[in-house]
């Protein structure tokens, strides 16, 4: 008897710890992970909030084919080891039908081969590393993995397109963080800018994470007197670069990327952020209801403005939901539906299709005006926005 009681207790505990087992058996489970705590907590929370908003919309609208959607949320703490464990849990224990990554390249990249092997579709919100959708060991695409954000090269090329064609910049300096994303985006930028006939005066890399004092870099840039400075970094570094450039009396136009696209950037940079232009994945001034409703609902729910990370994660979730609506809950069928995506009306732009898992959609150019990101231009030149195939 005693033994049975103990077993019962253990079983009870077990049930308690399995998320959602107590709920409706027939809910459709979707996995989600993001760096909810740790160094990228601001982005992780943003992704989580946005996806939860999407979940509420789907379930309030009757779910998928009459079934509720259940979101299994994990915190990867920006730690790849953690992400591997999460991927295995999602497949084996939670038995989800598809996964949304609301995380950075590091954690997303290590989960991609696991999901690929298990035949589990994953849509990554904004992770930029090429190896998310590509298997470098077998030299073939991970055909179960899809990406809603741009490849670093594509976003960099789009920023260069804007710098040279719209800003008419002939003399450009590049400063970038030394990580996968920084290297990819600044290489894409430099290649396109030079192809269009502009000169790259200086290319500098700073240590990431850790660098806080950009004055030595910026002083060197100032000496070359460029018209545009292309800067790659996340919101902390971005804010420091922008502030310190202003302090040093640098008047060149600063052009950033999606790493700048955070309320934290605007807060830390303060008035120095005014006029900064970025290439990103969200157009706040897009009149389509999908955009304006999301921005309004997000503000209402969290009392904070939505950012690129949130919007991209929301999109990733909705793209997956859309595929499940079309194809049902069989992972293979979901993958097929994702491969057939055509002219999807996404929050972060109209997705024409996926090429080897990479999204094809216009790149947004935004400018900080009155302490907010506003629309400045859209880069839709197919030569620039079509991801390179391997």
């Amino acid at each position, binding site marked *: 008897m005693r033994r049975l009681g103990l077993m019962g207790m253990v079983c009870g505990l077990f049930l308690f710890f399995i998320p959602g087992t107590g709920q409706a058996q027939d809910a459709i489970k979707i996995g989600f992970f993001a760096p909810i*705590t*740790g*160094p990228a*907590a*601001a982005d992780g929370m943003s992704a989580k909030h946005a996806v939860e908003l999407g979940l509420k919309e789907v379930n309030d609208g009757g779910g998928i084919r009459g079934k509720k959607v259940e979101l299994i949320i994990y915190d990867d703490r920006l730690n790849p080891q953690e992400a591997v464990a999460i991927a295995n849990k999602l497949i084996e224990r939670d038995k989800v039908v598809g996964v949304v990554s609301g995380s950075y390249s590091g954690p997303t990249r290590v989960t991609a081969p696991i999901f690929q092997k298990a035949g589990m579709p994953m849509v990554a919100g904004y992770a930029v590393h090429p190896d998310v959708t590509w298997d470098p060991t077998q030299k073939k695409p991970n055909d179960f993995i899809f990406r809603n954000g741009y490849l670093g090269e594509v976003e960099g090329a789009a920023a260069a397109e804007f710098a040279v064609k719209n800003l008419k910049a002939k003399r450009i300096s590049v400063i970038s963080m*030394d990580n996968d994303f920084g290297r990819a985006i600044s290489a894409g930028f430099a290649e396109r800018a030079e192809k269009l006939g502009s000169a*790259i*005066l*200086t*290319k*500098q*890399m700073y*240590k990431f994470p*850790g*660098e*806080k*004092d950009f*004055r*030595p*870099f910026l*002083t*060197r840039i*100032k*000496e*070359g007197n460029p018209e545009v400075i292309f800067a790659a970094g996340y919101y*902390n570094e971005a*804010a*420091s670069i922008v*502030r310190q450039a202003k*302090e*040093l*009396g640098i008047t060149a136009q600063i052009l950033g990327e999606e790493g700048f696209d955070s309320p*934290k950037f605007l*807060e*830390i940079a*303060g008035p120095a952020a005014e006029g900064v232009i970025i290439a990103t994945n969200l157009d706040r001034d897009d009149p389509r209801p999908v955009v304006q409703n999301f921005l309004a609902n997000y503000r209402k729910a969290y009392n904070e403005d939505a950012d690129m990370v949130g919007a991209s994660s929301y999109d990733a979730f909705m793209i997956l939901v859309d595929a499940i609506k079309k194809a049902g809950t069989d992972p293979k069928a979901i993958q097929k539906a994702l491969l057939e995506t055509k002219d999807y009306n996404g929050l972060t732009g109209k997705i024409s299709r996926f090429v080897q898992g990479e999204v094809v959609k216009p790149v947004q150019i935004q400018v900080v005006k009155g302490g907010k990101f506003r629309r400045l231009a859209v880069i839709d030149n197919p030569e620039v926005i079509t991801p390179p195939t391997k």
Partner: protein
Amino acid sequence: MWFDDCSLLTGFNMLWQQLANGIAIGSVYALISLGLTMVYGILRILHVAHAGIYALGAYVGWFSFRLVGDFWVSLLFGMAGAAVAGYLVERFLYSPLLHLPRIAPLIASIGLFIALEEAFRIVAGPHTLTYNARIGLGDLSIGSFKLTETQILILLVTVVILIVLWTFLTRTRIGLAMRACAMDAETTSSFGVNVGRIIAINFILGSAMAGAAGVLIGVYDNQVWPTMGSIPAYKALAIVVLGGLGNIPGTVVASIVVGLSETFFIGVLAIPFPRDAVAFIAMILVLMFRPYGLLGKA
């Protein structure tokens, strides 16, 4: 490759600007490292948690700035907060451990440092806080050379603190006792000097300077964050070795040398070289060729 051509190297203004950048960051290194070298000089222990005191100074300064709204008041509070913390660390952490082998206070120090970082994260959150203080000094521009307001602030505060420290050490009886203790605590004690009190004063002064450095970096970078002490924790050790352990003028010189070399490596030679490696390469060279430090005597 990330080397660019060096045709932009010639600018004269740029050299002055880089000099200002280098001296500014070097001054902050000096304020952090002085406390460390003074503690080593008197107790012969490596006070790793000193970098935690530096971050604490930044947090206290930030918090009091939020309360009072005046930068100079927040600087004083940051220094005072760090000084109190330094005193408590000496009294309750090191003092009971001093009779043990030197590894014991070192381990305690590392433990305290990690605990402090976690405490900042739990109390003030993992996010970066902005220390957006109006200082009221203004910039100094000569042609295209510009000494920014925060650089002027750093130079001013550092020079004042160094003059006060030097006067204190050379012109007062307590300062004399401190220097005597650093040479030989036991003999000094036999002359009727209360060594315990001297050690406490030593910690209070060193920690107040670290607190000032924390506040200065807070406004210089406009950022205060939980792990802001982690790089200074080891860089200051390298600087202290470079200056000759326990040598106060040597530490100031070493700090400026490290600040300037970092800046010139990045900004003039444009070598894509990790900034934080400079201090360590210098330290290794010094240990190989001048183990008594830059200004020390063989």
